[in-house]
């Protein structure tokens, strides 16, 4: 017997014959079972989420038919006059959420930096759970806290801002800030105070995301900075922050998504006003979720459809914000080392 035939070059084949083969993944029954059940559960979650969107969208059809584009441009909400629109509602929603983010961003950033970079090891886990606990406090508690404790004090801040920065439209209030007996009621129940309450709920979310990306800043680069004689803050500025940019933005946007939907605390604080105004320190505003919660109880079927339409718009807004946030966070986690 000779080996020669085996060693001979393979005879030239038709190029079309050289197709990739179907390879059986060769999973064990247990793997297969797990794969299928995990996929089924994952798809169920997606299906539930999708059906919420479809339900809201379907309910919104009559409203869109009836009001058309004016639903987005009208600011009044007077079903008895057949005048309905969500422009003021959307503006108020965005306003409250932005105030919450502006207040909570520095607090969350510094909290996360302190926990991840400065706190001694034995305090760290305690601080982490303390911040996480902030997220576990029911929002009604924050609402009550803000209404009874924060508001009577925050109005002094509002008045001060009005006195000194009142030339800016956002800090303006339709009341004389320098009057001897200043009108405290002009400053209560405002978007500003609602935003402060909501910020308490967005801090833990943003801080948790930021802390987890800070912790992933690579040790090698951290040590490199220290070995060059960097202070801790210098190291943070040159390594941790650039590395975590995506996570910082993403965490804030997740918090924004949370803030857009916050209901109870806002409902407790604001007094509903459907004006298109950006005077955030002034009494009265309205947000989408508090509109729905406030009017849901005694709504007729046509009004209900309008409320669900508002809900649909909110749903789309938060979906967009959270999707952006997820993209940013993921980018920060996987590829920052090669970014820029």
């Amino acid at each position, binding site marked *: 017997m000779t080996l020669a035939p085996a060693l001979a070059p393979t005879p030239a084949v038709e190029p079309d014959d050289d197709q990739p083969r179907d390879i059986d993944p060769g999973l064990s029954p247990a793997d297969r079972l797990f794969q299928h059940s995990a996929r089924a559960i994952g798809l169920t979650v997606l299906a539930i989420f999708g059906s919420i969107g479809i339900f809201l969208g379907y309910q919104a059809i009559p409203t869109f038919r009836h009001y058309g584009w004016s639903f987005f441009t009208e600011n009044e909400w007077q079903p008895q006059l057949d005048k309905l629109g969500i422009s003021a509602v959307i503006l108020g929603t965005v306003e409250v959420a932005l105030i919450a983010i502006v207040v909570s961003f520095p607090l969350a950033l510094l909290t996360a930096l302190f926990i991840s970079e400065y706190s001694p*090891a034995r305090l760290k886990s305690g601080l982490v759970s303390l911040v996480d606990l902030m997220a576990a406090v029911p929002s009604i508690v924050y609402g009550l806290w803000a209404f009874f404790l924060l508001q009577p004090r925050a109005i002094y801040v509002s008045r001060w801002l009005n006195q000194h920065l009142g030339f800016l439209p956002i800090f303006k209030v339709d009341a004389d800030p320098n009057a001897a007996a200043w009108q405290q009621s002009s400053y209560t129940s405002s978007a500003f105070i609602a935003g402060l309450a909501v910020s308490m709920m967005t801090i833990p979310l943003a801080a948790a995301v930021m802390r987890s990306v800070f912790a992933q800043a*690579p040790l*090698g*680069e951290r*040590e*490199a*900075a*220290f*070995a*060059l*004689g*960097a*202070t801790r803050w*210098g*190291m943070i500025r*040159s*390594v941790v922050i*650039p*590395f975590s940019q995506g996570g910082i933005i993403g965490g804030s946007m997740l918090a924004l998504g949370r803030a857009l939907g916050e209901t109870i605390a806002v409902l407790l604080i604001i007094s509903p006003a459907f004006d298109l105004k950006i005077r955030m320190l002034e009494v009265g505003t309205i947000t989408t979720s508090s509109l729905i919660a406030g009017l849901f109880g005694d709504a007729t079927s046509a009004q209900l459809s309008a409320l669900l339409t508002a809900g649909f718009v909110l749903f789309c807004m938060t979906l967009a914000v959270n999707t952006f946030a997820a993209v940013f966070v993921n980018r920060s986690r996987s590829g*920052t*080392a*090669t*970014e*820029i």
Partner: protein
Amino acid sequence: MTPGETVVVSTSTLDDLLAPPEPRRGGARLEAVNVSAWFGSNKVLERVSLPMLPGVVTALIGPSGCGKSTFLRTLNRMHESVASAKFAGEVRLNGNDIYQPGHRITQTRRSIGMVFQKPNPFPAMTIGDNVTAGLKLNGSRVSRGERADLIERCLTRAGLWSEVKDRLGEPGQALSGGQQQRLCIARSLAVDPAVLLMDEPCSALDPGSTNRIEETIRELKDDVTIVIVTHNMQQAARVSQQCAFFLATQGTPGIIVEAGDTEQIFNDPKDSRTSDYVNGRFG
């Protein structure tokens, strides 16, 4: 300050700190005296003493886990950045103990630079910015012209200039591993250290890049005192003039078994364990 008072590093004035460093001639004398180190209750180094002389490359050799990297990290106070780390003994830079109370750790690390095992250029910075990163971290201000000079000088000393001079604006991470390591050397040189510690700088690199780094070490040794940890016996023989053999037997902290001229350690070791190690009989 009265005339005649010894000038220690920590009393340098703000102006000195903020001025861009002038290239220095000759390294400094670094001396470890009775250095012990722990991680938690685990003692990893016991009473290690070693002088590291200017103009000389000192190689630290020994099997894995013998404490030579830990020893290196005690020399610029990187050791204490690990939470459970403890230290005893003295490390004297030109006679001054760097662990002395009141001695600024940032200043110490600035005069005793370090190059790590894995190249670690700052990812968000360009090649040029990486070189000057140390100055920025130290709050030194450099004018545009000085900055360009400094970048060229440091990259030249690190043997990287000709390869990157046209792409200083590209990210440091775009370079190959060996180039990144030389960039890290240039970055350390930019703050003008008197001592440069190198922790297995070539272990992640291919032979060609290793060669370039060894050349760089030979060129730098007259300006900077170099201490290098290496697993590669041939490398120790090639680049160092002085050599210390570390050993930690099962359960005991690391010690220096033998230290001396590299020639002597490799050709005529006094201790049988040194002889076994350098001849590849263990480790």
